[in-house]
């Protein structure tokens, strides 16, 4: 696992690549690919949120999809009630963060840790799954929006800010999604270079030491947990736009597992790794859906075991280490100079 302080430069480089992709993709890729990419991007935002809370905060949240799904539902309910998506997006982020804050208070101030925290978050996810599945019927509604039970509910598409008559088409939502992903990514990168972010990494490394330095680890954990829930909610908003619908399935065990897989494949302690892994595995699962020789569960299971056993750090950190090992002997002095500059810059 790498330290949290990697500086902003790689973050900005990847953000630039993302921006180029965002404007270039529509001229290279087919329409259906662009439309379908929205879903992948939404899931990448979800992976990013887990990369933040698990990879940097050290909090193993099995139920990150709970915040993702909650965001999607809150957006859908909000957009139906308000007749537009602008406020609904804010509501989604707020609802999800607020819920995370309450749940986080409950667990972090109760000093629930490790695997027990994982169980509680997973359980909360399963409660959503069970409860929302049974909300079919007219008596279950929020405002004028029916919750829809097992079948789920149609999510209104995004519209231009405060212009409820101009809905975006799926291929246009792609731009919004990509921009949101880039912004969330830069935000997370920036956050990890702030005092707050570094303390979070410190707590991940050694909670007692952070406490002995006078940091209340509970507050920091609560903070990063809440922020990551808000980011997951943004992913949820994009997701229900990409799919056009939100169903309780979003809360199921398979999706909870998949989120963990993205982060472990991409690498804990990096932000770009899980994003890249999401796109890679999304492509893979889509490709698997077009064939019927290999069972998909089989393939996913093998990937997960393979990574845990042989590439436990995940792809991104393994590549970084490999590059670093190859460069170190010859370019040690240059690297030291660069590190120094980087530190000066990020401490400012």
């Amino acid at each position, binding site marked *: *696992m*790498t*330290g*949290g*302080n990697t500086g902003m430069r790689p973050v900005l480089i990847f953000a630039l690549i993302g921006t180029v992709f965002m404007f270039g993709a529509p001229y290279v890729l087919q329409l259906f690919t662009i439309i379908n990419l929205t879903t992948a991007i939404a899931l990448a935002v979800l992976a990013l949120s887990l990369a933040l809370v698990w990879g940097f905060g050290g909090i193993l949240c099995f139920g990150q999809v709970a915040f993702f799904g909650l965001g999607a539902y809150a957006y859908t309910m909000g957009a139906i009630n308000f007749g537009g998506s602008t406020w609904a997006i804010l509501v989604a982020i707020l609802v999800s963060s607020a819920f995370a804050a309450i749940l986080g208070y409950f667990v972090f101030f109760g000093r629930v840790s490790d695997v027990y925290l994982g169980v509680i978050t997973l359980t909360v996810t399963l409660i959503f799954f069970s409860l929302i599945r049974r909300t079919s019927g007219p008596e279950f509604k929020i405002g004028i929006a029916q919750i829809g039970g097992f079948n789920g509910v149609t999510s209104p598409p995004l519209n231009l800010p405060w212009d409820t008559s101009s809905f975006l088409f799926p291929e246009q939502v792609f731009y919004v999604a990509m921009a949101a992903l880039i912004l969330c990514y830069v935000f997370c990168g920036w956050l990890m270079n702030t*005092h707050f972010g*570094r*303390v979070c*990494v*410190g707590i*991940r*490394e*050694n909670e*007692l*030491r*952070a*406490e*002995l*330095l*006078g*940091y*209340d*680890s509970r507050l920091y954990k609560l903070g990063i947990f809440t922020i990551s829930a808000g980011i997951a909610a943004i992913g949820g908003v994009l997701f229900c736009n990409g799919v056009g619908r939100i169903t309780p399935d979003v809360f199921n065990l398979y999706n909870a597992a998949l989120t963990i897989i993205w982060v472990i494949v991409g690498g804990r*302690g990096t932000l770009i790794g899980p994003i890249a892994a999401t796109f890679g595995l999304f492509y893979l699962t889509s490709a698997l859906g077009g064939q019927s020789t290999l069972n998909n569960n089989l393939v996913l299971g093998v990937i997960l075991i393979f990574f845990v056993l042989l590439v436990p750090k995940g792809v991104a950190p393994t590549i970084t280490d490999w590059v670093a090992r190859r460069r170190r002997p010859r370019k040690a002095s240059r690297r*030291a100079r660069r*590190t120094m500059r980087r*530190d000066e810059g990020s*401490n*400012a």
Partner: protein
Amino acid sequence: MKPARDKRPVIVETQNLAMHFGGVRAVDQVDFTLFDKELRCLIGPNGAGKSTFFKCLTGQLVPSAGKVIIRDGETTGFEPHEIASLGVGIKTQVPNVFDGLTVDENIWLSARRWHAAKRARAVVAETIERLQLGDIRREMVGRLAHGQRQWVELGMVVAAEPWLVLLDEPAAGMTHDETARTADLIKEINTQAALIVVEHDMQFIRMISKQVTVFHEGRVLMEDTMDAISKDKRAREVYLGNRA
């Protein structure tokens, strides 16, 4: 309560402090007083209760009975971060450092707790200089030798500029030279702050100590200078006996 031998204000005090684990009384009715700018060593054989007592002071353990008072306020049952936030620097027995971060980052996290960004950087630079960590400042702490890790932890304590420092076996696992340097550092810290040092190494204690408290079976056996203790029959029996 022991009569004050000193005009300096009392900054740490415990009253009837006790810590029980099941049926075992690890610490039993300890009354303890520390004055401002004092340097006190706690000694005693294994299982005497000194480390448990230390953890009651740092908030790592909540005492079963009695009170801990730091400066003017009662801190019994405080969380470690609350104790540290009073301006208390703490080093635990096992080196507690951020293994995945560099030496720089470790010390920065301590300095930044108390200072704004710019001043924090200056404090980090000073601390690195003072502890002569310049050569390894970019290294991951997890890759350093045991003694170096101890020093990084001391660096974190120093960087917080505390007025009270609690150290649990600071010289454990250090080479002879490192131990001597640690002793010097402790004396230097003592010019600004009071210290409580739990230690095994008698030589080390002789290097730094003025007043020493001897623990035995969870209680304070005696409290005196190192010289007096080496001559005391009871102390020799329980602890020094065959070693001094």
